[in-house]
């Protein structure tokens, strides 16, 4: 007998469910500006005096603040009054591309129900912004990718006009289809490119090395057919099958290529998807490998042995794509656990609270072997990491930056952002010897031009 939809959906959500913090309502209400209440007569004179002093102080601070927010002045780390507080946009920054110290794009999702999505560009480090593309209600941004300051692709997901199909992978099986626009002048002009749609993977290429060369995993919806790896060298007009995704790889593997021949499949090993009759998690059969490599453009894949910490055996592991500087490689991953014990009574939440640890592995032979396992003080679980080179890393810890110059042997930590804010470091953050861009939460931006020693707020543009 089939389970009812209601019990199945509830079971699925409750499997992961964590009760909210007891103070969630208080926290939410505190975020709302409170209404003004009249001051008592007794304190009014004292308050008026204080107000004059405060006003003078505010004018001084505001003068500095305006310069900081305009990016004219950078603030050093470790500020006495708690760190940089970049201005928040009145919208969510749902994607960003930073391709040089001065040139960046942000994708803004405006509020109010399904509001439009707008692409904004700056070429002067965030001082001025220009609108380049607007996606109307009903459609949404699929992806935005720039390979340099000129060449970029924008994928807009638009509602399918085909009759809906219940057959996975058949035309109409997805209710949104991608529409690709291409630019060669930094977004000044966009041309619609008529690309064939892979209905088994309508999200588009899984990894693009250049604007013309990309790989995708196709057929993932066509059970039980094996997923295949396809390759294009003409920007997606034609695709050729180059290999089969290894059978031992996780269904949720991410695909990355570091050059035309060398590619990586990084798996996410989750062990919390099944429970026995008592609600105890069942250890899933281990994957044959969490990391796979191809050195022939995807035709053949080989598992890579990783010396994981002991706690990875019984808990969930998530790998980031490896990063290489010549033959030196860095592989960041997290272990989180324990899998929640599921209570037979569905109305009760799972019993355990989770934890998460970040680790780093290093390679010195192009990723053939990995070692020097070390737990990192921040990183994945607290906003990610950026790498200047194989030895110099910046890890975020909420508002703090933790830095190492000796590949994790020693660390220094300093506060950069105001308490309550947090960096969102990610591989697509632009970073070179001196310049760094980073998003802060969902609606703020910061930039450094001296390798992270000083940071400047970037004022998000006003969008109408």
């Amino acid at each position, binding site marked *: 007998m*089939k389970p009812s939809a209601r019990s199945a959906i509830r079971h699925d959500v409750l499997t992961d469910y964590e009760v909210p913090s007891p103070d969630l309502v208080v926290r939410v209400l505190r975020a709302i500006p409170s209404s003004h209440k009249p001051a008592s007569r007794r304190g009014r004179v004292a308050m008026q005096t204080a107000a004059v002093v405060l006003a003078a102080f505010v004018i001084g601070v505001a003068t500095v603040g305006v310069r900081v927010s305009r990016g004219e002045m950078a603030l050093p780390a470790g500020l006495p009054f708690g760190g940089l507080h970049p201005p928040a946009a009145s919208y*969510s920054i749902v*994607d960003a591309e930073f391709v040089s110290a001065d040139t960046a794009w942000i994708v803004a999702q405006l509020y*109010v129900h399904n509001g439009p999505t707008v692409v904004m560009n700056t070429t002067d480090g965030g001082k001025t912004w220009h609108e380049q593309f607007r996606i109307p209600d009903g459609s949404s941004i699929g992806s935005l990718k720039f390979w340099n300051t000129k060449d970029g692709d924008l994928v807009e997901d638009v509602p399918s006009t085909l009759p809906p199909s219940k057959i996975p992978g058949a035309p109409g099986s997805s209710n949104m289809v991608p529409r690709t626009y291409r630019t060669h002048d930094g977004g000044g002009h966009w041309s619609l490119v008529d690309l064939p749609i892979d209905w088994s993977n309508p999200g588009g290429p899984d990894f693009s090395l250049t604007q013309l060369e990309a790989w995708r995993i196709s057929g993932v919806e066509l059970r039980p057919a094996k997923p295949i790896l396809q390759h294009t060298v003409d920007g997606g007009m034609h695709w050729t099958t180059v290999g089969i995704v290894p059978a031992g790889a996780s*269904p949720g593997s991410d695909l990355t290529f570091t050059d035309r021949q060398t590619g990586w499949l990084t798996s996410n090993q989750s062990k919390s998807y099944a429970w026995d009759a008592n609600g105890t998690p069942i250890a899933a059969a281990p994957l044959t490998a969490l990391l796979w490599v191809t050195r022939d453009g995807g035709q053949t894949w080989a598992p890579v042995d990783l010396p994981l910490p002991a706690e990875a055996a019984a808990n969930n592991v998530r790998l980031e794509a490896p990063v290489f500087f010549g033959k030196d490689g860095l592989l960041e991953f997290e272990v989180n656990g324990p899998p929640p014990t599921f209570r037979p009574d569905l109305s009760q939440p799972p019993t355990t609270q989770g934890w998460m640890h970040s680790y780093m592995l290093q390679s010195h032979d192009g990723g053939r072997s990995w070692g020097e396992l070390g737990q990192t003080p921040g990183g994945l679980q607290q906003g*990610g990491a950026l790498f200047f080179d194989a030895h110099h890393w910046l890890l975020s810890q909420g508002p703090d930056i933790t830095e190492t110059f000796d590949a994790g042997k020693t660390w220094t930590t300093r506060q950069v952002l105001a308490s309550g804010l947090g960096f*969102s470091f990610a591989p697509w953050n632009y970073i070179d010897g001196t310049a760094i861009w980073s*998003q802060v939460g969902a609606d703020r931006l910061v930039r450094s031009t001296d390798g992270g020693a000083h940071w400047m707020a970037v004022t998000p543009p006003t969008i109408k």
Partner: protein
Amino acid sequence: MPANKLSRAREAADHAGFDSLITPLVEPAYRLAFAILRQRMAAEDAVQEATFKAWSKFASFRNERGGFRAWYLTIVANECRSLQRGRWWSVLRFDQVRPPQGSDESAITASDLRQTIAGLSRSDRLLLYLFYWLDLPLEEVAAVAGLSTGAARARLYRAVGRLRLEFDPSKENAT
């Protein structure tokens, strides 16, 4: 007063204050955000951000279809969608889970179900969570999803069919 009738008392709500309107809705908002994001901290952040946006847009609330609760949950759902769309979303993303190879088509396991749900569109998943997890009436589900009631019913039926589960006719009739 039931939350879905609050919009009819807009004037009274102004006097009562936004806080008293929103407080009983924080818990269902969190449940919706958690169903979408599957991470407590992210869900709490989404609820906080959505509540602030609701507060800032409250003056423009005009007794929309479905009432205040539907209006607020729409903002919550949009906030979750924005969070997921951002590439800084660095947890295991729900929609990255792909079907395992060679699994038994006839068996509905927790893993199977999850992966099939992950294969649905975001909007179909939203319908499932609103109807079966939050137990909202179909009219309110439709309002949050921006659909007509008939379209919401049809899409729910289709989504459930894809999951190879029984559509709950009693639940449907009850609404």
